[in-house]
């Protein structure tokens, strides 16, 4: 049981980092950005290759953030400069990155089991007491998520952050402030995909491998996390949206985990009902739960674009 809870917390926290990015695109900019489906594995690919090449694991964090940011810029440029619709720009980059990711990693599956990672290295072994050893991953993840959250909160309070929020809220005002709204969108997409790639980097180091299809459905998980979090805490003003998104990520992971554990046989009196759910139904559970959340969330899946 404890192992399951730790597992849920760990995965929830990893996806929380990506969800912080989706929060920027979906909630702040109102831009459904599908490129995260490929920037997440891109982060993993860059990490696996770097670690094998001997780059210290800590450096992979800023490195993957940058790589993701570049990909986000491309989505933004396609949308802003070439005037392609938001959804399509994301799809184009998502598809193109699939091949790029294969090129980065060299093959579809790249294990790094025997290598040092941010969760498993000589330095950590020296400072973590044996009694805390089972929680090492959780503690490190918690610290990383906390740092990401605080940095994002601080950024949203800067002038640039104000402008980013204004761009999603009322584009006309950004133009009135003599700023190019396109540039602001590109910046937002860069940060968002930076977070997605960072999450992929951490996922790769935690699981010990890169796998080309690991990003499939990332956007669904991200959106679900953001919507659960913001819907649950929308009336509680002292909980920041970023905190809400992180809690939403853990809750969503718990829901999926519970749904998958329903598989097996249930005995009601003499009747035995067998529910054929197995681990391979993960994506199905992910989607169905997301749908339930969308419907329960008061059909607020799409931010109402009515300003008046």
């Amino acid at each position, binding site marked *: 049981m404890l192992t399951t809870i730790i597992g849920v917390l760990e995965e929830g926290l990893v996806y929380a980092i990506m969800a912080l990015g989706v929060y920027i695109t979906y909630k702040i900019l109102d831009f459904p950005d599908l490129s995260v489906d490929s920037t997440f594995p891109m982060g993993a690919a860059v990490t696996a290759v770097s670690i094998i090449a001997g780059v210290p694991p800590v450096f992979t964090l800023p490195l993957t953030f940058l790589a993701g940011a570049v990909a986000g810029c491309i989505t933004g440029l396609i949308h802003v400069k070439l005037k392609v619709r938001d959804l399509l720009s994301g799809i184009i980059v998502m598809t193109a990155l699939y091949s790029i990711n294969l090129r980065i990693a060299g093959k579809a599956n790249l294990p790094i089991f025997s290598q040092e990672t941010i969760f498993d290295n000589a330095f950590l072994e020296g400072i973590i007491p044996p009694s805390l050893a089972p929680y090492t991953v959780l503690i490190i993840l918690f610290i990383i998520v906390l740092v990401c959250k605080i940095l994002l909160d601080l950024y949203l309070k*800067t*002038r640039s952050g104000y402008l980013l929020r204004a761009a999603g809220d009322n584009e*006309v005002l950004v133009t*009135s402030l003599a*700023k190019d709204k396109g540039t602001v969108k590109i910046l937002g997409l860069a940060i968002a995909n930076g977070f997605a790639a960072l999450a992929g980097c951490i996922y790769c180091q935690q699981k010990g491998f890169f796998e080309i299809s690991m990003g499939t459905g990332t956007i669904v998980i991200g959106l679900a996390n953001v919507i659960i979090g913001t819907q649950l805490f929308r009336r509680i003003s002292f909980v920041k949206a970023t905190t809400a998104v992180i809690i939403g990520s853990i809750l969503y992971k718990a829901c999926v985990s519970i749904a998958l554990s329903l598989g097996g046989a249930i005995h009601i009196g003499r009747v035995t009902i067998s529910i054929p759910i197995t681990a391979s139904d993960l994506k199905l559970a992910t989607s169905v739960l997301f749908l339930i959340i969308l419907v329960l969330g008061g059909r607020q899946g799409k931010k109402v674009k009515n*300003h008046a």
Partner: protein
Amino acid sequence: MLELSHIDKYYNAGTVNEMCLFQDFNLTIPDHQFVSVVGSNGSGKTSMLNLICGSIPLDSGHIRMNGKDITRLPEHKRLRSIGRVYQNPAMGTCPQMTILENMSLADNKGRAFNLRPGTNRQRIDTYRESLKTLGLGLEDKLDVKVGVLSGGQRQAMALLMSTMTPIEFLILDEHTAALDPKTAETIMILTDKIVKEKNLTTIMVTHNLRYAVEYGNRLIMMHQGNAVIDRADEEKQKIKIDEILAKFNEISIECGN
């Protein structure tokens, strides 16, 4: 000084629905003039404002601002020295952000939007003072989201925000049209006060003939892309609502309504 020279503007050019709005349209607005623009729907009032601000492209002609050709300048660069208030009160503010954050945004116009704090704490008292001049009690609601304010309150804020930083031109696009008569009156008085205080060159499009006659020192009536009435200074002072109404009727008969 704002000069529009030989402006041509067609809508749906090259199709059967081609409609010529402006053909060789010329207009010069000297510094510190307050121009009221009236005219029926489709007469080109808002299109003129959009051409000046760069929201829509023109087909030929030139727009000069203080002698500098801005015809090819993108909208956001032109708005550096222009403040614009729209008919829709929602266009001038960010509903999801607080009053304080909106004021800070407006205050940063013309500066770099970098990683400095979005709100300068030392400026809060200044914001409070200027909100107080509105007489709407907004100075005590700095942490309230603008989305919950009424249309009139938001339009008052939009006006304040668009004129907060040093600008030269103020473009008012039927900015009282969506408000109730009393709020419209308040906003109009406030507009006049700000224009006089800051000595702004102003273009106000309005459907309210009384405002057009009462405020400003030049009145233009647009019809089919031309200025059919254009009176300034003393001549403008003499103009009566009846005269404008008569012209409106004359035009309507011409159009066959």
